[in-house]
Structures are given as C-alpha cells and as structure tokens.
C-alpha cells in the first residue's frame, strides 16, 4: 500500500451513440447521481471526470460525452483519439440506434486504440414495454465483437455504476492511452509514473 502511486490510473473514456440514446444521462447518473428527464442535447462535447476505487487501485476516468447527430460525426475522432475505453450506447426502444451503435463499434475497431476496452450499453432498460432490441440480440453481437454488454437505465440507475466499474476493472493496469502503439507495459514501479502523476 505504500506504493499506492503505482496503482493510480488515468483513463480516457468516450461515449458514443445515436441521438437521444442517453449518453449524457448515463454520465450524469454516474458522476452526479442525477437524472434529468429532458437532458439537453450535447453540442460539441462535454467532459466529466470521476475517480473509482477498483481492486486496491484508483482509476480516474476522464469521460468524454459526445454529440449524437450524424452531422457531427466528423468531430468524434477528436474525442476518441487516445481513449482507453468507450461505451457505445443505444436505446433498447429504438432499433435504428442499435444499428448506429454497430457502426460505432466498427469505426472504433478500425480507427481507435487497439487495446480499447469497449462496452455496449442498451440504455432505457426501464422502458420494457417499448423494447425493440432484445437482450439476446445485443448480447450475441457483443460477444461476436469482444465487447461486454449491459442493459442500463440512467433513469433508475440500473447497471450504471456497474458498467463504468466493469470498464475500470478491465483497463490494463498501465494505461497505453497516450501510446499510439498500444503496447501494454509490465506493471512495475515507475511504469505508471506518467499516467499517475495527476492523481491525488
């Protein structure tokens, strides 16, 4: 425990997904434990940070919340550049948002950090009556693409913390986020110095 500095990790996480899928709501629930029924649309991008304790380590997530409209797609690489993790969000009551999520997965697989931890969130899980995307369908897709999948509800807080914690757990102990080659360095003293320097 004396070398706790080694166990501090900074990780950039980006949220991507269709308009109104609930990206901002998930972050707001996670970071501030708030929910606004009519969360305003995100213009450009928003930034949040939250520190978690995971397995004796502290993980500071630097969360980038992006605009969903296709017209702003071109801004996205700026935000997922160097990201260690991504949550791709869709709305379980909206099939098109699931299709859009798949597009994001493809893009990240092609362009993102190769070691990126990716999660698929089927949000609005409280709206069971309006469900259009089955959990099985999403789960199958996630498995085929090495993502982990959770159904979440920002409104009821179901699985919200869990999905962020799961990401934090899966992050490589040493962040390759700033390293374009994506190489994972062995865990050891000094190795985390760069990424841990900002942690309290």
């Amino acid at each position, binding site marked *: 425990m004396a070398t706790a500095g080694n166990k501090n990790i900074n990780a*950039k996480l980006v949220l991507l997904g269709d*308009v*109104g899928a609930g990206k901002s709501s998930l972050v707001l629930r996670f970071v501030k434990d708030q929910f606004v*029924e*009519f*969360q*305003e*649309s995100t*213009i*450009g*991008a*928003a*930034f949040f940070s939250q520190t978690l304790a995971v397995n004796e380590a502290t993980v500071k997530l*630097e969360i*980038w919340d992006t*605009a*969903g*409209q296709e*017209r*702003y*797609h*071109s*801004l*996205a*690489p*700026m935000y997922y*550049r160097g990201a260690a993790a991504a949550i791709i969000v869709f709305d379980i009551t909206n099939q098109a948002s699931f299709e859009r999520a798949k597009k994001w997965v493809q*893009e990240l697989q*092609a*362009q*993102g950090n190769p070691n990126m931890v990716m999660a698929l969130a089927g949000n609005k899980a409280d709206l069971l009556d309006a469900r259009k995307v089955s959990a099985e369908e999403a789960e199958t897709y996630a498995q085929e693409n090495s993502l982990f999948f959770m159904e979440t509800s920002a409104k009821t807080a179901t699985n919200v913390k869990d999905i962020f914690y799961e990401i934090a757990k899966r992050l490589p102990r040493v962040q390759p986020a700033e390293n*374009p080659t994506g190489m994972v360095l062995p865990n050891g003293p000094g190795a985390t110095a760069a990424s841990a320097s900002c942690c309290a």
Partner: protein
Amino acid sequence: MESSELHDLSDDADYAASQQQGSASMMRCDSEKRSSSSDHDGAELIYLKDNVAIHPTQFASERISGRLKLTKQDSLLFLSWTPYKGQTSNAKLSEKDRSLYTITAVPFTEVRSIRRHTPALGWQYVIVVLSSGLAFPPLYFYNGGVREFLAIVKQHVFLARSAEDANVFIVNDFQSPLQRTLSSLELPSTLPVASGQSIYPLDGGSSSENQGRTSAGVDNRVSSVSRYGLRKQKSHDPARDLSIHLLEKFSLVTKFARETTTQLFSENNGLGSVDKRWNNQPVHSYPEKLSNIAEEKYHESPHSYPVNEHDEEIPNIVDVPADPLEFNKLSLVWGKPRQSPMGSKEFTAFLDYEGRVVESKALRERVFYGGIEHQLRKEVWPFLLGYHAYDSTYAEREYLRSVKQMEYATLKQQWQSISPEQAKRFTKYRERKGLIDKDVVRTDRAFEYYEGDDNLNVNSMRDILLTYSFYNFDLGYCQGMSDYLSPILFVMEDESEAFWCFVALMERLGPNFNRDQNGMHTQLFALSKLVELLDSPLHNYFKQNDCLNYFFCFRWILIQFKREFEYEKTMQLWEVLWTQYLTEHLHLYVCAAILKRYRSKIMGEQMDFDTLLKFINELSGQIDLDSTIRDAEALCICAGENGAASIPPGTPPSLPLDEGILYPQDDDVL
C-alpha cells in the same frame, strides 16, 4: 502583401479578353506555359484549369474566379490558385479579399487529402486539406473537370481513396489509421485557409513543432518553395520570415500608437515585468537560433517599439509576447460602459409618424450599447434579424405579417398533410421528425415558458423546426437549431412570426449547420487569425499544443453562446451581436475576449486540448456578460481594419447587405 508578387497573367489584356468570351483554355494554357517556364525558374506546368472559383459566402452570386495550377519542381508537385484580377462577380469583393484567398504554391507534401464533391446537380468542387489540419475553401470547377484534376494529381503523387469515404482521396500515406480517419472524415482539425497569410506563418519561424509532427522535411518544403521562386527572398531564413510576419504586427501596434495616447505605451514599461513569466514560453517555441536572437534583442531593447515600422531591426521577438498587455490596458480605456436597455418610449423616438426607423444606424448603436427591454424585443428583433426592413411602415409590417402568416400555413401544410402511409415510405421525413421530436422536448425545459407536460410552446417549436426543414430542405434540421429558436419563439410569442425571424437568422447562421462544416471552419479559422493578431503569445501557445483548430470554441460559435449564459443574458448578447454595429463578427471578438481573460490560466496551467475543452465548457454560467461585451468591443476597435482583414469575406454571419458600412474600407494602410 505576398500575393502581390504572384505571377499571373490575369491582368494580361489577351487573357481578360478571352475570359470575357468564355473558356479558351488551350490558348491560355500555352501562354501560361511560356510564362511559367521563364518566371518560375524551370518549374514545369503540369495542369492548368480556368474558371475555378471560390465562394466566399453562401451566396452563389459572390464568387472569386481564378486559375488552378499544378506545377512540378524537383519532383515535388505544387498546387496554386490565383484569382483573376478585376473579374470578380461582385464589386464589394476588393483586391484585398481576393489576395486573402490566393493559394501560393503549396507542395503536395503538405497536402493530407482532397475531398471531391461531384453532385449530379450543381457545381463540382474539391476541398484541399493540409497536413497541418488547415483546409482551403472549396474550389469550384465551373467548367467541370474534377475527375481529370484528380487523375492528373494521381500521376504525380500517391493518392489513395479513403476506406471510409469514397469521395476522399488521401495524399501520400499516413502513419496511423487514426490520422487517416481524421483526414478522411469531415476533418475535425480542419480549418479553411485563406491562403497567403496563413500558410505564411507555417513557413515562418515557429515551424519547430511542425517538424516534430510531420517529420518529413519542413526544411525541404521551405527550401523547395523558395526554389520554386515565390517568396524567394523570404523563405530561406526563418528569422527573416518571422521578421516580416512581425512587421505586420508592428504596423498594427504603431497604428495604435497613432490612434491612442502615447501614455498607453509608456505604461508598458511597468507592465513588462508582470508578464515576464510568459515570455519564455512563446520564445521557446521558436527554433533555437531565433530564441537566441530573441533574448539578445530582449536585453538590448526590452520595450522599444520601432518608430518606423519599415526599420530593419524589427524582429524584436520578445516584444510580441508582451504586446497583449497593451490590449488589456486598452480594453479598460476603450470598452464603453453598458447603458440601460432601450425602452418603448425611446424606441418610438427612432420612428417617423408612419413607423419607419429613420436612422437605423443610430438605433443599432443604441441597442449595441444597452440592449432592449424585454417587452420591446418583439418589435425590435425582427428589424435586427432582417425580417422587417428598417424603412417599412407600421402598415407595411402589419400587411407583411398577414401575408407571411398565410405563407407559413402553406409551408406547414406540406408536412402536416403527410399521412402515416406516406410517412412509412418517406425515411428522410421520419428521421427529421424523430430528431426534432427528441430535441424540442429537451430544449430549455427548465425555463418557465417551455416547462411542464404537454406544453404548447414546445409543440410550436416542433412545428416551426419541422416546417423549416421543409422550407430549407437542403439544410434540414441540425442540433443547435432548437437553441436558436427557443428565445426567438419566447420573444415573438407567435408561431408564424417566430418562424420568419428564425428563417432570417438562418440566412446568416445556416452555414453553421452545413454538412461540410464549412461555416464553422471559416469562423474558427477567422477566430484563430484574430487571436493571432490580438494575442500572439496565446496563439503560439495554442499552436504548440495542437489547439490551433480552436475546436474548444465550437459550442460558443455554433449557437452563439446560448449555453454559456443564462436565458436573459443570452438574449442581451444576441441583440448586441445582431446589431452588427461595429462588425458583423462581434461574436468572434467575444470569443477572443473570453480567451484573453483566461489566458494566464490557460497557459499557466499548461492546458492541453482536452483540459482546455473541459475548462471552456465549464466556463458556462461563469462569464460576466457586460464586461465581456466591453472587452470584445475594445478588441474590435483595437484590431481595426487588421481585424476585419483577418476575417475572410463571407464568414458567417455575413450577408451581402450593408457590407460597405460594416467593413470600413480604409485605404490608409500603414
């Protein structure tokens, strides 16, 4: 000033005559060949295309036609575009405007990608994006031939079609897939370049970080540009480049010296030390040789402004980091105190007995300095937005209202008549409606006017946006539009009137929402030029930290600070911006003013792009409006014509109207 050295034949009598007759490109091609082989020290002309134009505004009528050329020198391919002299479609586009856009021999080693647009209807154009992240404005091929152009480029440089977008051609090969995406998408880090001026600093003294990033020879580039013959004398020596660059700056400063009291400058002596800790940063960004010069110069003359701006000893680099303080000081002197908002009685005094605004400028000035009382906004906003003409009478406005009401009903009927069966077969409509439905229910719902379930005002907002997406089907709906509409509907309290005011506003700001993001890029580019002019240390800081795309100001510009101020303050700011009293682009000066206010924090905390964006987003609700407007006003006055010249003509929200007034044409250039 560089562009005056351009070799072009467009002032040639033969050329002008042939131009009048239309296309005769073979003949001109020959003459050009002759000239280029003699003038360009053996540069080989590969390709020449006439009638390639730039549209500085969204109005097709305003275009600058010119000639696109590819030349080759020492196995390097160069692209250049030269506007014809005296051939502009619009007399308002001055010589200066044209030179702003001139593209002077850019080597393809600097080009990252070319995006082509070859619509079935309308003009074909290409957008050339540089590896620095900057992009030139679209080049319209009025006689077609984009395909041929690309084919010829392909013969000389490696051109790969982007995997993501078949219309994007990537030049050379890129190091990482990410960069490939960045270049092939609509280019987040892209700014349009109004060439000459902006290429120029890249060649200049501060190229060290370019070398770090692109590795492939900046030196090589500089020398080949110089061998090519344009900017011959300037390009060899980075220090010299910088000095010429600084010359422009000093001409600005000396202009202040004339315009302000000398006392302001003498204050600099005392202030120099305050800002000294920042002096190091920009200096370190220059190549070592330069920073040595800088330090020497600093010790020699820490605060001397050249009496004569043509003096040889101008590269007094350390004075540049210090110069923003003059602006800070000036702002205290120049920004006028805000007045109380204009009331109804005062407004009536601006009207003649039939309701015409007698002196629109005086009215705009009054609103600029104090804003409008809320109840009166409904009457004044339609003027500011251009929905009502200032010289219209009460009766004419009343008549217009009823005519426009019917017109609105007709437009609205277009989508209201779509049956569910038709909607099933109308994906675009369903998508738009879906998007609008999602956004209106989350626009300003905490604000009284829009709060609560089944709020009729929310329905009105939905109807207006959907009607607008039919009225302007090409633009459609884009996130951010509801932010603009919300205060307008709140003020106008009438669906049709709000719609037409919104239409008028979108005439100016529609380009913000263009698919190609050109309107945003133009404004972000203009902002970067303004900050460069008004605070070069800050500009250099952004440059060193890869923040030159100014995307951290994206939200500010896209919706004109709607998310940065509370509702009432936003309306106050908007009516000030809409007066276009000092400039059409006060919003850019507002950006500069806010950035300057936080410059010490930004640079002191060494913010990188991420931190900066977070910081800027979190300024929301923290910015004092009145002092910001005063600072912006001061900066605008300080920047003067140099400021106006930094903003390419047609940068939103420019309209072709009133340009003569809004761009003071002063030939008394230092």
